[in-house]
């Protein structure tokens, strides 16, 4: 089960991912991010504090936007990942390609200094 809660603060939008992302629901994550891109949101925070699991289907969603984020000057930072989930990003070296920070404060610092 995956629940995505969206909240807007100042200049950024935060997507809170609650539960598990797998091949059955990764399209929901994709749609949420696509919606932000369409709305011309430039600063996106992804709160992974309550993300218990992510499979390649979910990782692929983040990867598929990297070029577009670059072109459109969109900054996305993930924060709060637990160790198990963080490790999954790390296995493939995706933590080098996607901005991942331990805390919300650090994530905010990244998107607002950009």
């Amino acid at each position, binding site marked *: *089960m995956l629940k995505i809660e969206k909240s807007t603060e100042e200049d950024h939008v935060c997507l809170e991912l609650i539960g*598990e992302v*797998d*091949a*059955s629901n*990764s399209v929901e994550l*994709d749609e949420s991010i696509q919606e932000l891109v369409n709305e011309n949101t430039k600063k996106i925070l992804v709160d992974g504090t309550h993300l218990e*699991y992510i*499979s*390649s*289907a979910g*990782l*692929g*969603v983040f*990867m*598929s*936007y*990297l*070029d*577009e984020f670059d072109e459109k000057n969109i900054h996305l930072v993930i924060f709060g990942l637990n*160790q*198990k989930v963080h*490790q*999954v990003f790390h*296995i*493939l*070296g*995706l933590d080098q*390609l996607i901005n991942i920070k331990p805390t919300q404060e650090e994530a905010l610092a990244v998107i607002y200094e950009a």
Partner: protein
Amino acid sequence: MKHELKLYCDTQELAGLRTFLNEFLQKTSLSDIDQHQVTLAVEEVCANLIIHSHDCNPKEFIEVNLKQKDDGLVFEITDIGMGFNILEYKEPELAHVIKAKRKGGLGIMLVKKIMDKIEFETSGKENTCRLFKKLNSK
């Protein structure tokens, strides 16, 4: 005790697969992080079969068999169909995954990084993918 699961080819069934794997893995000496990764690797192989070999047809199923041996764990995934030989699959470069904006291709990379050995065999229409994970001997 038998550790067998008949997994119907619907991605909604993947959560049930994870529960099945977790119950088995909790009784092994694998660390929490390794348990999580092994669950992921087995799910990736199953998700691949469900989506690509069986077109998410919920009437079809694959079988997942778990065994604990002295030196490690064996995960056997069997299906009837066209077969997907994970060993022959050439995984894309990460850079290519980004450029092509393809949302697949990462799963098999994960399986190969997480598992210690992978075997694939076909007998008639039956395909078996066997994944091995060593248990740390201490």
